[in-house]
């Protein structure tokens, strides 16, 4: 047998770029940038006590309205508090509160949706009706109601928004779960005698996982906006605590006195975080759709 | 001159792992008024071959070779040329008529659109013509049907509407892509009968794509069998069924159960059908073939003329007669399928 020489195409040596390729395929370049930005914010928030140059709540009246300088990279506010430190601590509140809202509403909404889709019949009809009613009420209204009962502060706002977000999650997940339940593999599980719990946890949940995560990430963006709005209105974190919404509120007064930095920097923080979360959420939903 | 000539057609489509060959050197021709059956399993490339004739292929595909419809070169044609081809010369019938008829338009709109646009008929004339066309495909109450919506018609009726639309432009060539696969057997019989009648009355040529070798053999003048993007055998239908030249054809004939006889176990072709890009350098069918020799795995067999047809098999001469109606020797052990990684 004659042996032929076969020229193999050159295999490029793995570079950093090619190691990043799987991530680019999953998230796309915008998604990757958004994830990077999110990671930075999370690290800064987690390490704020060590990273922040000053105590965010300590007033230094002599340094009020200081412009950006080596000592205060973003300047100070009306009470002379370091703006950078306040924004860093504010990130803690923004992330913790929005994450709590999303975790609570996702867990409750998913549970309601799966049970409703699996049991079907009048249970599903009842659940859908209740969801429709709740859906008509904006989340902010729930937050206002919660604050009026529990008093102003992050706890009431989180509880109210979590209730407000649950119907969104439940509706989206229920729709997808209904499609899933009609598939033959669920009928096969039913025929075999799998319990309802097993069907929900072992079949429905794994197959809806990517959709639920995508939905949660997208909602995170809206939760951040609602949270900031409520703080801006003075219903969330109370002074002297640090919170972006609160900083914006204070920054509005400062801006009227000609010091726009405070409002601008807080606003920019909110906008960038919301934008990156939404970009990421969109990308994840797209992936979930492609895979379904 | 032939109605349709395809020469050395190669189609590569884009995929995540680079271009993939789906059709790999297909050549065929159809005479005026002739029906050619193109038979193959999934992945054989039969549908893509038919679509390529109309210049319909997925974006980013690489297509090479030559396709001529009555002397008109399809692959080199511009947009206007293709539109003229599709609207006057060549009509296509698809497997699932529901996916190709707009559900919000009435049957009448669907049927008269082509008549008005391509043949320049007025509304009343087109409607009269449409009723006549429906009668031709065995739908007597055409006027009522024209006012109905697609969802009000059964699959069989809708497929007849598709055929009516196809013949409306009085094409010279019909490309029928599994037109009866989604239909019941009795409806299939009627649709095939209608297609046959219309073809002979109007002298239309047809390329009939199907997975059903018996159906093609019974309804087409000649039948070609595709495997892994290549035509492995082509013969007049009658001799193909009685005396297949390629082991794959013979395997297909043998593995299909019959209503006339019962075998305790069917003779099977082991493994699963592969697409062109999955095939090795030798004969694509060799891994599944009971007659394969060393050479079959190494060298791709050329297409050779044989009797009244063509065959691509290294051993076709020794196997002539051996294969006649006879199934491939049953393989020993459990059939092994290779898995595909997406």
């Amino acid at each position, binding site marked *: 047998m004659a042996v032929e020489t076969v020229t193999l195409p050159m295999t490029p040596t793995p570079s950093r770029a090619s190691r990043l390729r799987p991530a680019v395929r999953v998230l796309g370049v915008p998604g990757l940038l958004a994830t990077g930005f999110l990671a930075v914010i999370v690290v800064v928030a987690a390490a704020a006590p060590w990273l922040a140059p000053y105590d965010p709540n300590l007033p230094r009246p002599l340094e009020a309205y200081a412009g950006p300088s080596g000592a205060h990279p973003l300047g100070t506010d009306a009470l002379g508090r370091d703006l950078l430190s306040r924004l860093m601590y504010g990130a803690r509140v923004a992330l913790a509160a929005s994450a709590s809202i999303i975790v609570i509403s996702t867990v409750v909404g998913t549970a309601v949706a799966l049970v409703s889709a699996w049991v079907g019949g009048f249970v599903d009809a009842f659940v859908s009706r209740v969801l429709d009613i709740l859906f008509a009420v904006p989340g902010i209204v729930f937050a206002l109601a919660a604050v009026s009962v529990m008093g102003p502060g992050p706890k009431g706002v989180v509880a109210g928004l979590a209730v407000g977000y649950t119907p969104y999650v439940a509706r989206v997940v229920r729709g997808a779960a209904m499609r899933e339940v009609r598939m033959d593999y669920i009928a096969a599980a039913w025929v*075999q*005698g799998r319990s309802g719990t097993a069907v929900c946890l072992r079949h429905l949940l794994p*197959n809806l996982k990517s959709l639920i995560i995508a939905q949660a990430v997208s909602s995170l963006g809206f939760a951040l906006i609602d949270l900031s709005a409520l703080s801006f209105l003075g219903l969330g974190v109370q002074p002297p605590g640090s919170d972006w919404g609160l900083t914006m509120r204070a920054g509005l007064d400062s801006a009227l006195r000609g010091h726009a930095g405070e409002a601008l920097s807080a606003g920019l923080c909110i906008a960038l975080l919301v934008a990156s979360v939404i970009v990421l959420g969109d990308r994840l939903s797209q992936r979930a759709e492609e895979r379904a | 001159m032939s109605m349709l000539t395809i020469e050395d057609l190669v189609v590569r489509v884009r995929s995540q792992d680079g271009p993939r060959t789906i059709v790999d050197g297909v050549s065929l021709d159809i005479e005026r008024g002739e029906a050619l059956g193109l038979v193959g399993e999934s992945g054989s490339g039969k549908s893509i071959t038919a679509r390529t004739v109309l210049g319909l292929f997925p974006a980013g595909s690489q297509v090479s070779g030559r396709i001529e419809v009555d002397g008109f070169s399809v692959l080199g044609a511009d947009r206007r040329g293709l539109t003229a081809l599709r609207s006057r010369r060549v009509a296509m019938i698809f497997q699932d008529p529901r996916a190709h008829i707009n559900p919000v338009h009435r049957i009448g709109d669907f049927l008269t659109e082509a008549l008005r646009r391509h043949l320049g008929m007025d509304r009343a004339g087109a409607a009269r013509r449409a009723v006549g066309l429906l009668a031709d495909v065995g739908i007597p109450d055409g006027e009522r049907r024209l006012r109905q919506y697609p969802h009000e018609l059964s*699959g069989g009726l809708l497929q007849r509407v598709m055929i009516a639309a196809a013949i409306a432009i009085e094409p010279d060539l019909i490309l029928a892509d599994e037109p009866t696969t989604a239909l*019941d057997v009795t409806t299939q019989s009627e*649709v095939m009968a209608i297609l046959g009648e219309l073809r002979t009355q109007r002298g239309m040529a047809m390329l009939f794509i199907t997975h059903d070798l018996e159906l093609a053999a019974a309804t087409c003048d000649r039948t070609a069998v595709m495997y892994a993007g290549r035509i492995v055998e082509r013969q007049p239908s009658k001799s193909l069924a009685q005396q297949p030249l390629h082991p794959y054809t013979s395997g297909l004939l043998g593995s299909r159960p019959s209503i006339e006889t019962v075998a305790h*176990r069917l003779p*099977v072709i082991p493994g*699963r059908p592969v697409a062109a890009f999955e095939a090795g350098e030798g004969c694509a069918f060799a891994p599944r073939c009971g007659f394969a020799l060393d050479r079959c795995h190494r060298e791709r067999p050329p297409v050779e003329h044989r009797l009244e047809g063509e065959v691509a098999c290294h051993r076709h001469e020794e196997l002539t007669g051996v294969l006649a109606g006879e199934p491939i020797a049953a393989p020993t052990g459990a059939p092994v399928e290779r*898995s595909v990684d997406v």
Partner: protein
Amino acid sequence: MSDQVIKVEGLRKVFPGHGGAPDVAAVDGVSFELGAGESLAIVGESGSGKTTVARMLMGLERPTSGLVEVCGRRRSTGRPTTRERRRRGREMQLVFQDPYLSLDRSQRIGTIVETAIRLQFAVGRAELRSRTAALLEQVGLQPRHAELFPRQLSGGQRQRVAIARALAAEPSVLVLDEAVAALDVSIQAQILNLLCDIRDSREIAYLFISHDLAVVNQLCERTLVMRRGAVVEEAPTRELLTAPTQDYTRRLIAAVPRPGWVPIRSTA
């Protein structure tokens, strides 16, 4: 008779018509019996009600009226408990038409088969492993397939997994709803042979729902022809194919393509 595994009497299913349309009787007074180890085919075209019969037998659809008895026990039409469903699973299992929809895409093949075994039998880890391997082998798959996900398998292989999953419960009856209709010709023959081998190796009855007379002829001793919800004719398959007594059966047979076949228009 005691060795009857399925007895159906006067089975009826009426679907409410929507948009003011009259109600539709998808299944209208169907009766038949299936003996242990026997193979019965229900043949019909679309809209004949054959699949609805299968779904009612499995409890996936609630009969409007009629009696269903499986393994000597009458099946109530109420919503069964999980326990009851599990018990029924040992009597009768189902193989679906489309192997792309009937397997959970997020589960490995091994998990799918193991779960089906664990639902019916209290077995230890080692026993579970060996039983799974044995089932996969019986349907012509290899041990390595247990590690794969459904998307990594071909259609034929998936249908083998679906059959293994159904056999895991060691049922007395296997209902096959167009189980080979979606497969390529060469794969169809492999699966038909597999079904034939399974019947040779264990005591199991088949209820084979199909539109394909040739496939039915290959696998079933007896055939029941349905049309528009009702039984047209029931006879041993050979007899039905060679000497049909009903016009509709004759038309069905005449429509099957074969050498020398000429398609005919039944209505001019």
